[in-house]
């Protein structure tokens, strides 16, 4: 440290923009300011590739985002760059950025060798490894592959994704369970059974499973081995009929289930605040036994084509009263609006959710319920006040517009803080003619509004 510099601290204060009166004399402030400038220059000299103009850790930051082919190609930039890619701690063999259309037909041993070669050349820790086989590629992530590759990863990998294209019923090899540092794990297209000596993924926060077939008890064992789990996503999986979760740390859950699901029980997931449930092909009545108490976001998607899809069947009124009182955001998709029972049910849902801020109702469903729409009775508004509701989006096929109008009338009459209501009848190919559109616009304008600021947007 240059002594002459230290001696003249007051001059340095001025140079650094600090008024002297505010400087209870401290050499350390001045020193740290000077050093941050000084060190930056030193770092630049040490680490900058004299040919490039970016410091090495900036280059590393950029390289981490490159897909594998782009990354490997940097080896040909110059002699300095030849092995720069081999220490980047992220390897992403992902979809078409790994195997573009004209490479999809590479024979499996070729694909396998590419990955093995990359892993062998690599040096340093690998924190993120993604292998996502693109649609159309016949390569399968086999037991032998993983037994070869996981040893390169198991010590350090935090974020691991292994997704086969489609369902492939080879077992997830036990070696994968030796990756103790995992914080995020996603896999798909495997058969899951848990090794007898499984000690858990103690640091896992985020788990995503798609197209996985569970052996008996495997899902429960896996989840109970993850004491810190915060986000869980299970889609298009088979082999489980009961979904009872008691993980106290879980905050976000997304579950896509099929007709085989018999029971969903979530009351023990005390911190679960964001829940998405989607029925792939219909649901059995009484499916949902309990919901978390402090839900803030709830999204429930009925199946696209099942005629028996009524929300009233799966979330009974008792559940509504106990579980919807903290909900701020609600989305219901494929609601059959022209079933009177369903329309009344939605009203009871709204009445049970006094904190609701945003409502989203969509109907992509092609189902045409035979019963003629019943407009004789408007929905009763007097006893209801949705005083937090600010944003409403209703998006339907043109043909069910009449029933949506009853709901809209109800919402406009009861929402005292409403800002925007968007009504979109543009879904589907059937378009309404101009006269009908005009009459809808006029009806919307004439509806009584509890909120003077409410803006109603009509999209077609």
């Amino acid at each position, binding site marked *: 440290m240059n002594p002459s510099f230290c001696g003249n601290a007051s001059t340095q204060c001025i140079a650094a923009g600090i008024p002297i009166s505010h400087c209870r004399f401290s050499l350390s402030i001045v020193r740290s300011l000077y050093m941050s400038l000084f060190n930056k220059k030193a770092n630049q000299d040490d680490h900058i590739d004299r040919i490039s103009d970016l410091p090495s850790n*900036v280059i590393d930051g950029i390289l981490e985002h490159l897909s594998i082919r782009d990354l490997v190609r940097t080896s040909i930039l110059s*002699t300095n760059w030849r092995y720069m890619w081999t220490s980047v701690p992220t390897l992403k063999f992902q979809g078409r950025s790994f195997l573009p259309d*004209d490479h999809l037909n590479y024979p499996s041993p070729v694909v396998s060798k590419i990955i093995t070669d990359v892993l062998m050349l690599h040096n340093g820790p690998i924190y993120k490894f993604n292998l996502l086989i693109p649609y159309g590629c016949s390569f399968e992530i086999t037991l032998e592959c993983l037994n070869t590759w996981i040893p390169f990863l198991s010590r350090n990998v935090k974020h691991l994704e292994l997704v086969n294209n489609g369902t492939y019923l080879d077992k997830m090899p036990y070696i994968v369970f030796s990756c103790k540092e995992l914080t995020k794990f996603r896999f798909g297209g495997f058969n899951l059974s848990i090794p007898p000596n499984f000690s858990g993924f103690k640091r896992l926060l985020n788990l995503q499973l798609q197209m996985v077939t569970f052996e008996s008890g495997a899902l429960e064992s896996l989840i109970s081995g993850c004491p810190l789990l915060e986000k869980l996503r299970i889609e298009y999986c088979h082999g489980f009929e009961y979904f009872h979760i008691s993980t106290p740390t879980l905050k976000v859950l997304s579950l896509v289930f099929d007709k085989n699901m018999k029971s969903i029980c979530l009351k023990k997931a005390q911190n679960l605040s964001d829940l998405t449930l989607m029925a792939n092909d219909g649901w059995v009545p009484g499916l949902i036994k309990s919901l978390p108490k402090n839900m803030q976001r709830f999204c429930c998607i009925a199946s696209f084509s099942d005629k028996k899809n009524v929300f009233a069947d799966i979330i009974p009124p008792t559940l509504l009263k106990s579980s919807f009182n903290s909900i701020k955001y609600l989305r219901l998709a494929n609601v059959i609006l022209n079933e009177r029972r369903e329309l009344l049910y939605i009203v009871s849902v709204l009445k049970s959710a006094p904190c609701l801020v945003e409502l989203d109702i969509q109907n992509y469903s092609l189902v045409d319920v035979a019963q003629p729409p019943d407009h004789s009775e408007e929905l009763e508004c007097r006893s209801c006040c949705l005083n937090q509701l600010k944003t409403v989006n209703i998006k339907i096929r043109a043909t069910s517009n009449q029933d949506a109008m009853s709901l809209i009338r109800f919402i406009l009459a009861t929402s005292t803080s409403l800002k925007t209501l968007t009504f979109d009848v543009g879904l589907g190919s059937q378009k309404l003619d101009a006269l009908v559109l005009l009459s809808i616009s006029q009806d919307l304008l004439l509806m009584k509004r509890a909120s003077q600021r409410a803006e109603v947007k009509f999209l077609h």
Partner: protein
Amino acid sequence: MASSSSNLISLKTSDGTVFKVERALAKTMKTVQAIIEEADANIYMIPIHNVFSHHMDMIIDYYKLSVAGKSKEFSVEKLDNDELKDFLLAVHYLNMEDLFEVLTQAVADRLEKKSVGYVRKYFGIENDFTPEEYAAIRKKNDWAFKGDDIEPEEDEEKQEE
């Protein structure tokens, strides 16, 4: 005066402009945070070298969007390659993790599937391989160079001769 100014930190950019930013924003700048913590007294004004006022404008934009949960709306599309590099260096100097990720991703997106020649120009790199070395590396990693989606090399044929 002291209590109101303790919620705002003054940052002076290289071009002399003073920005008063919320403490929470200053906290996302680890370099600045380190300076504040090392100080015995309340620092009056912190100079941030290598950061210009147009950089600070963008940093404040990003901060406002992320506080509103809309960080995905932040875009650097309007910056040309050199401006983006400069901004990235400024954010790197300030040691701002999230914005650094966003900007390195933006640079990576601009380099995606580009030819080797383009990438050399971007980083200012000179090719110092012999033609034989070049051909050997090219051949060994053939799978990474082939693909309809990659920009073709202009000088490839020359190199392989």
